[in-house]
């Protein structure tokens, strides 16, 4: 009961953010880095519903694009992580033996370093680019999908249903379709939401310490840092992107129903 309610609260926040992000971009046809140096920190107007920033760029469009960027980058990394994670997890559980051992060793190797460290190391190859950030995140996130899928599939495979289906003549894909995938789905969803919130925090934190995505690309973390010097005159502009990160992460965590990444 409780879980369901928090799930829907999370979902509604997310839908609201999506609408906000898409609509404001449709209505205001600016580019996020279109400057107007003679119109700095303009007050909200019809033209700029949330005013402009330190370079006369439209705040609403930048926030909307940054939201979209964070969200989609997080989504892509999560999808990139879960496809191999789940596939290999099922494979390791089903095949067992050497395949299982080999995949586990790869995981152990990746786990030997804390996640952010691995991402930072990859970023070192090309700071400020999307690609290392994306690869790094996906490389970290797939492990959890793999581990949990493998464990869960293993526990499902010993269920008498699997043995009986096989001896009744059904193929493995029947078992996969009927038993394993339906049982994995809610779990995959939970990890996915959690992964996404991890990814969003990582992306914005890295941008905030100047090794993530670089300005002028609108990114929530770097926007906060860029606007920080103006916290006195324009507190709203600093708070807005912070608040949006907070909302996204909050909504995802509410939906994931988990307290820790385990």
């Amino acid at each position, binding site marked *: 009961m409780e879980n369901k309610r928090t799930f829907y609260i999370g979902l509604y926040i997310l839908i609201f953010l999506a609408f906000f992000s898409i609509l404001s971009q449709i209505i205001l046809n600016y580019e996020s880095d279109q400057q107007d140096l003679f119109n700095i920190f303009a007050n909200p107007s019809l033209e700029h519903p949330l005013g402009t920033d330190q370079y006369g760029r439209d705040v609403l469009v930048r926030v909307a694009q940054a939201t979209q960027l964070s969200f989609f980058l997080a989504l892509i990394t999560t999808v990139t992580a879960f496809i191999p994670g789940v596939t290999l997890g099922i494979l390791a559980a089903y095949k067992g033996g050497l395949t299982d051992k080999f995949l586990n060793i790869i995981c152990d190797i990746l786990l030997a370093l804390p996640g952010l460290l691995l991402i930072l190391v990859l970023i070192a190859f090309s700071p400020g680019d999307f690609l290392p950030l994306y690869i790094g995140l996906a490389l970290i996130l797939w492990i959890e999908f793999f581990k949990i899928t493998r464990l869960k599939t293993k526990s499902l495979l010993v*269920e*008498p*249903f699997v*043995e*009986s289906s096989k*001896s*009744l*003549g*059904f193929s493995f894909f*029947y078992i996969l379709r*009927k*038993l394993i995938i*339906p049982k994995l789905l809610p779990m995959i969803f939970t990890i996915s939401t959690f992964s996404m919130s991890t990814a969003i925090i990582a992306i914005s934190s890295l941008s905030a310490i100047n090794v993530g995505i670089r300005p002028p690309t609108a990114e929530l973390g770097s926007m906060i840092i860029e606007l920080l010097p103006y916290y006195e005159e324009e507190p709203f502009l600093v708070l807005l992107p912070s608040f949006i990160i907070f909302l996204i992460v909050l909504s995802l965590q509410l939906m994931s129903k988990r307290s820790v990444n385990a």
Partner: protein
Amino acid sequence: MHKQLKIENLTIYTKDKVLVKDINLEISTKKPLVLLGESGSGKSLVIDAVMGILPQELKVTGKILLDSIDLLKLSKKEREKLWGKHITLLPQEPWLSLDPTMKVIEQIKEVRQFTYKNNENQSLKKSLEELKDVKLEKFTNSYPYELSGGMCQRLTIAITHVQEGSLILVDEPTKGLDKKLCDSIVDKLNEQIKQNKLLFVITHDLEIARKIEGSLGIMVDGEIIEYSDTKSIFNNPQKEYTKRLILAEPTFWKIEKTKPKDETIVHIKNLSKQFDKNILFKKLSFDIKKAEIVSIVGESGSGKSSLGNIILEHLSSDFGEIIKNKNYSKIQFQKIYQDPPSAFLPEQILKDGFLDLLKLHKIAKEKLYSFLEKFNLSKELLNRTPSEISGGELQRFSIIRVLLLKPIFIFADEITSRLDPISQKEVLFLLKEIVETENLSVLLVTHDRTLAQIISNKVINIEEYK
């Protein structure tokens, strides 16, 4: 010392359902009470009500009188004060009730030390005596995981004993334990009766009920349908259900053994299997003939199921050979499982699973329907999920499922151990009937030796092959 526990008009109900309906029971010294019923019959609620640990959302009316005190009128705090000193609980599945991170001696010592506020030395001395009494003196510094199920049971009995409570509540004492241990448990319980304790046992085990002499209550769906002296119920049951229940004990079965044909279906020679260093069996040799029922008996974990799985090639053997009759295909060697719900998809209605099977093997629907009729199952049941029908019904469905494939051999792995005695009888009678009509061979795995002797042509005690 309390002399009597009297339950009067006890009713337990939720907002929309009555769980225990107006029951009256009485226990006095020398006259213990056994409440016999299947799981879900409400017997656990009765014991919880006496203990005072019913969930808050349940409402209770009636009286539970310990001598003259009505327990139901006491506050939660006052009831908790009775625990350990006046009311003692012998928990079911004792291995779950022992703290896994605490040494044996500590778990018994703490009762004297904290409940009775004895000093540490006294507590230790008394605890060691009790442990010696149940022959656990060598395990004082062990952890629960190092004890067997029976040893855990003895430990909780010792813990019960250091508590000087006059009312002892015993919750399913044989659940999860080997039948062999049954007698020693009954002995321990009877000892308590001799010490003038009030003993209240709930169980689903007819044997326990028979051996603890006093009063016996038969509980079905929240009601006591029969309540009298133990002896008189067993000798002269009044209610139809009670009669069937007593007759469902294998000893009372009237059954003729099948007549095996000459054709050998499975030939096993010098078979050996071990897990790590644990030898399951070695040099095991026997044949299974057509239309023969062969039973494998032995303790749980002794390798009975492994043997069947080796025959079906779910497991590999270490040594020896298995020759299966070449006239039959692999799919004609089938298995029926111990826990029927686990062999079905929990959310799927039965019909869908059966349709998949019919489609896969191109079997006509009529065949399924004719089996249903034969097995006394209504077509309506097909529209339900496994959890919506009873265990006995579901086990019959699993038999139908394998019969559709025209099997020649069925490995029946403890197929009735999760069923109540009445269902057990029905399912096994059905199986025996099929063996004759379809000329099937059955390898029956069971821990119940009596049952094995009664139904099968050949009984193999796997313990003899260690």
